[in-house]
């Protein structure tokens, strides 16, 4: 770790990232510290900004399904699902209920894998590597299930426009149920550890408290918000796919500290186990795909919202009647939650920073999209929409 002293303000600034042992993904943070206490925090994002939204405009509807799936490797199914749901509304295609149920099934399996992944990484940041290894070992169970179902461990590409690619056989059903039984046992154990292990609690209990009002003011989403008592979950507020057939119960905690975030996520696992079992027992009969999906989609626009493991994913899709979208706008949960890290950082120990950061379960590859930031230092570095657009036009004109 290097440290820089800025002579003017006599502040001691510790830059972290983009490559840093405490960060699994590139992001750049600067913490001004007074002794051990952080007095100011800034973040610079965008190291993994690839220009996917613009890229989506140059690919056709089906190709985009594979592109948006690769916005994030952890919640890949969620992105493809949100996109597919939106495009299906635009194209006015009815998706068979069996396909919707399988989509939800994969989404919940993905939530299990994502939460276990997060749990391990968070334990690692707390210095509890044993727990990290255990939870990742158990996570392999769910990876095996996903692989058996879809053929890939990550980026399952379970969706097609108008349905899903695979059915669930009886053998698979049994494998899934066995796996879930094992994981359920383990999750009880983890919940026990996260709420009773003294050393662990020292890193989580009472740290990074986000009050309900703050959570609402900062627009925090997902489990992070639910740990502060915000009753917000797209699966309940606006059920999509098969969530009206298979409702879930919101898990909320009110403490708002890191411990509550652990508890919310772990308890959500039980919800997911229950839901997956319920779906397997009551899988509606029928086709897997809609009969026909148009290549060109008539003009229109649509908003599609889905609850990803980290919170609400939001897609805006506009069609102009061609076989490519005119605009795809994505908003991912990490971006909403990032503000909470910066506001929480002030007043905490520097050593708590990794924990605060993983507390929101950040995912930088989702996160690094074009945002317009109103900098407090005026116009510095700010691009207007016109300037950005002109840049894009020039760029592509010069390229060809």
């Amino acid at each position: 770790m290097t440290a820089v002293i800025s002579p003017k303000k006599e502040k001691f600034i510790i830059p972290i990232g983009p490559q840093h042992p405490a960060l699994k993904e590139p992001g750049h943070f600067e913490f001004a510290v007074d002794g051990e206490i952080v007095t100011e925090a800034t973040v610079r994002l965008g190291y993994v900004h690839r220009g996917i939204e613009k890229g989506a405009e140059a690919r056709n509807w089906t190709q985009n399904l594979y592109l948006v799936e690769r916005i994030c490797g952890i919640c890949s199914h969620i992105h493809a699902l949100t996109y597919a749901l939106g495009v299906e509304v635009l194209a006015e295609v009815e998706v068979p209920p069996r396909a919707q149920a399988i989509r939800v099934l994969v989404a919940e399996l993905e939530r299990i894998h994502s939460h276990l992944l997060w749990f391990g990484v968070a334990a690692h940041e707390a210095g509890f590597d044993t727990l990290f290894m255990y939870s990742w070992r158990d996570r392999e169970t769910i990876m095996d299930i996903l692989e058996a179902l879809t053929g890939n461990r990550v980026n399952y590409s379970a969706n097609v426009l108008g349905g899903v690619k695979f059915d669930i056989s009886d053998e698979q059903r049994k494998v899934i149920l066995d796996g879930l039984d094992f994981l359920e046992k383990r999750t009880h154990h983890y919940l026990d550890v996260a709420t009773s292990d003294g050393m662990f609690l020292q890193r989580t209990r009472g740290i990074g408290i986000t009050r309900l009002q703050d959570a609402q003011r900062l627009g925090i989403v997902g489990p992070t918000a639910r740990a502060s008592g915000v009753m917000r979950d797209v699966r309940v507020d606006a059920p999509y796919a098969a969530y009206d057939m298979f409702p879930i119960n919101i898990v909320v905690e009110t403490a708002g500290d890191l411990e509550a975030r652990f508890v919310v996520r772990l308890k959500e696992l039980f919800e997911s186990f229950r839901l997956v079992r319920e779906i397997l027992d009551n899988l509606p009969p029928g086709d897997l795909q809609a009969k026909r999906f148009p290549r060109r989609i008539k003009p229109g626009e649509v908003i599609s919202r889905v609850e990803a493991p980290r919170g609400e994913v939001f897609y805006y899709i506009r069609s102009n009647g061609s076989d490519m979208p005119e605009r795809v706008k994505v908003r991912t949960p990490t971006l909403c939650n990032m503000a909470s890290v910066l506001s929480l950082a002030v007043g905490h120990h520097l050593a708590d920073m990794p924990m605060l950061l993983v507390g929101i379960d950040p995912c930088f590859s989702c996160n690094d999209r074009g945002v317009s930031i109103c900098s407090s230092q005026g116009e510095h570095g700010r691009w207007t929409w016109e300037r950005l657009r002109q840049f894009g036009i020039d760029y592509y004109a010069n390229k060809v």
Partner: protein
Amino acid sequence: MTNLNLSDEWNGILLKLKKWARINSPWAIHYNSGSCNGCDIEILATLTPRYDAERLGVKLQGSPRHADVLICTGPVTLQSRDRLRRIYEQMPDPKFVVAVGSCAISGGVFQGCYNVVGHIDEVIPVDAYVPGCPPRPEAIIDGLVKLLTALKQGDPPPTERPTELELENYDAATI
């Protein structure tokens, strides 16, 4: 080490020792220069109990200055290009680069996106490629083992660095 004024014999022994250490315990550093995370979680999974790359002596650690192997994932974005190059330059010689994933090899699905400069070996020289989207942990281990075997047999893959001039031209051509 060459400036220690050792006799040829001692130099030879020292080289052997270093090679032995390098092959038996390569320390790796991981940098995500624009990947979707898929490859990164598989790299992490490679280190966890099911696959446990540490039994081969591979250890993931934080500082480029301690690393022998740079594991890169993802296409190179405009913002992370200089970082990637800097990390590469901070690593002590000899150093090896493993490009993991289709994106790192060819840009993958992100080809043509405006902020993507290209694949890894357009920026730094790469010694081993592991294809897949994402590659399975077994494949990543296989890639590492192939690299180590090549080192053991004494023919380290050619690592030709781009010259300063090439880098400058490269900058001028892409920005």
